């Protein structure tokens, strides 16, 4: 079975030959693992892991083109402590291997009146998609990732001077917040539509709304400000291709709004951070498993960096037993794999998936 077929079958709640896999590796892990597969540093290029993913058994390839793309890709030549400006007009400072936005384009409320949104047809956004489609689409599912889209894009990158100041505006001036979110929703509807027209299989909307054990903002506020705009984006995507699969991602526990996500047309969610209510894999699968496919779940906060290979195997087994029966599950850690994860744990997770992830799932209760 081709990886693409396996991946798409699983999302459509059918059981393929085995549980599909999509493990996303951070920059330094990619550099660490690449030589094992014969890739030189140069060959890895600006788009990390594009060729490495299939070699470690991934069934899909992700092209990231949203506001977060700056965070992981175009940083090759920026030294620590230096600043750079991206196409959104956000000034980032490179600090300790991460980018911190130091100037936000909508820091003052009146900035919104004159702000020039980026061009959703910017050809630079589609270079990787076109290359990956040509090289891999016959065999692999292609996902275009628009992260981060609405609330997260506002509080991290765009609006007011800081996350706190933006959160105040949620209450002080929700109309202004609505206009910011409208601008983002319009831009991403157009960008996503253009990506869908390239023939990709899945469109990924990323918007971190979950904290460790709960939503960051109240569900009622999210329903009022974010949900209708999310719904509009999804309608635009479905107009471009009624068959397009809409994947919604948030870090943290966002289970309070799973029903709302289903309502606006989300059919696939990630990355199932195993904290808060989402620590109960079985309960989540039972309650939402007929309407949502899941991707993710393996703990990256404790287990992957600090656990033993045997503990990793056990947890992979547990995840498969809960999430995989009947399809509807793609295996993945709950976040990108970062440099603190030992190579032996990465291997343990991949091997455990091979051992326990064959359909029909036959894992007895421990």
């Amino acid at each position, binding site marked *: 079975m081709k990886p693409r077929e396996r991946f798409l079958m699983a999302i459509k709640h059918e059981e393929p030959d085995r549980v599909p896999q999509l493990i996303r590796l951070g920059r330094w892990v990619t550099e660490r693992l690449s030589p094992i597969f014969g890739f030189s540093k140069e060959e890895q290029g600006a788009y990390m892991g594009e060729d490495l993913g299939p070699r470690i058994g991934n069934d899909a390839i992700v092209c990231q083109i949203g506001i977060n793309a700056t965070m992981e890709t175009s940083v090759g030549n920026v030294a620590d402590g230096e600043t750079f400006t991206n196409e959104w007009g956000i000034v980032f400072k490179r*600090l*300790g*291997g*991460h980018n*911190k936005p130091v100037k936000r384009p909508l820091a003052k409320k009146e900035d919104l009146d004159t702000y020039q949104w980026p061009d959703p047809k910017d050809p630079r956004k589609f270079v990787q998609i076109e290359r990956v489609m040509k090289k891999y689409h016959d065999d692999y599912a292609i996902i275009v990732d628009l992260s981060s889209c609405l609330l997260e894009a506002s509080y991290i990158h765009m609006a007011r001077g800081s*996350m*706190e100041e933006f*959160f*105040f505006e*949620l*209450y002080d001036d929700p109309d202004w917040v609505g206009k910011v979110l409208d601008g983002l929703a319009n831009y991403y509807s157009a960008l996503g539509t253009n990506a869908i027209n390239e023939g990709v299989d899945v469109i990924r909307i990323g918007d971190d709304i979950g*904290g*460790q*054990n*709960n*939503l*960051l*903002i*109240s569900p009622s*506020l999210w329903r009022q400000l974010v949900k209708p705009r999310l719904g509009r984006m999804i309608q635009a995507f479905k107009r471009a291709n009624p068959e397009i699969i809409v994947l919604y991602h948030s870090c943290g526990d966002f289970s309070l709004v799973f029903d709302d996500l289903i309502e606006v047309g989300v059919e696939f969610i990630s990355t199932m951070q195993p904290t808060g209510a989402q620590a109960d894999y079985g309960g989540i699968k039972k309650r939402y498993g007929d309407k949502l496919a899941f991707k993710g779940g393996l703990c*990256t*906060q*404790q287990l*992957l*960096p*600090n656990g033993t290979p045997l503990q990793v195997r056990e947890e992979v087994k547990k995840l498969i037993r809960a999430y995989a029966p009947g399809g509807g599950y793609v295996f993945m850690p709950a976040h990108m794999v*970062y*440099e*603190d994860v030992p190579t032996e744990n990465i291997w343990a997770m991949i091997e455990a998936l091979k051992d326990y992830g064959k359909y029909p799932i036959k894992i007895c209760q421990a």
Partner: protein
Amino acid sequence: MADLSNLARMVEKGKHLEAAKLTKELLDQGMDPNQIILEGLQKGLLTLGELFKRNECFIPEVLLAARAMHAGMDLLRPLLVGTDAKPLATIVLGTVKDDLHDIGKNMVGMMLEGGGFRVLDVGVNVSPEQFMESVQKEDAAILAMSALLSTTMPYLKTTIEALKSNGMRDKVKVLVGGAPVTEEYAKEIGADGYASDAASAIDKAKELLGISA
């Protein structure tokens, strides 16, 4: 008619303009500024901290309450100079090296202030050396550190080790927190305490210093 419970309620609801107005009215009625702080402003924020601990309210609501508390405090602070009103202790607070996350850390700071501590927030991406310098300079009783990434968590330990090798470990209590940090990890690296949320941080800080709640 302004009263303290009404003031606490306005802080709880995050109404900063009303909180400032009521604070002023209570002052005009001749109420002791310390009483206004303890039974009005701080009480409102602490109530919300408890709700947050139980997942019954959300981050922006805590931030709004802290803003409302500060709106009142700003009016009272000048009046406290020269009185015997003293903070419980000084706490140096920051996010460890290579980690830029600050909203959780800021909430802990607001809550500790609400709990009666003096908080010196030294920001994000703070090296062990910078932490030690601030602890020494401020004569802090507690060093409170946050790490949000599994990759930066080890700097909690590095900083504790640095305190040890500089002969400072016995002079300051170390409190740690952040999404990936656990009670178990805190013990393992030799921290004195761990708190899972901002309200619990007050209880823990008081416990570490032997202050009755």
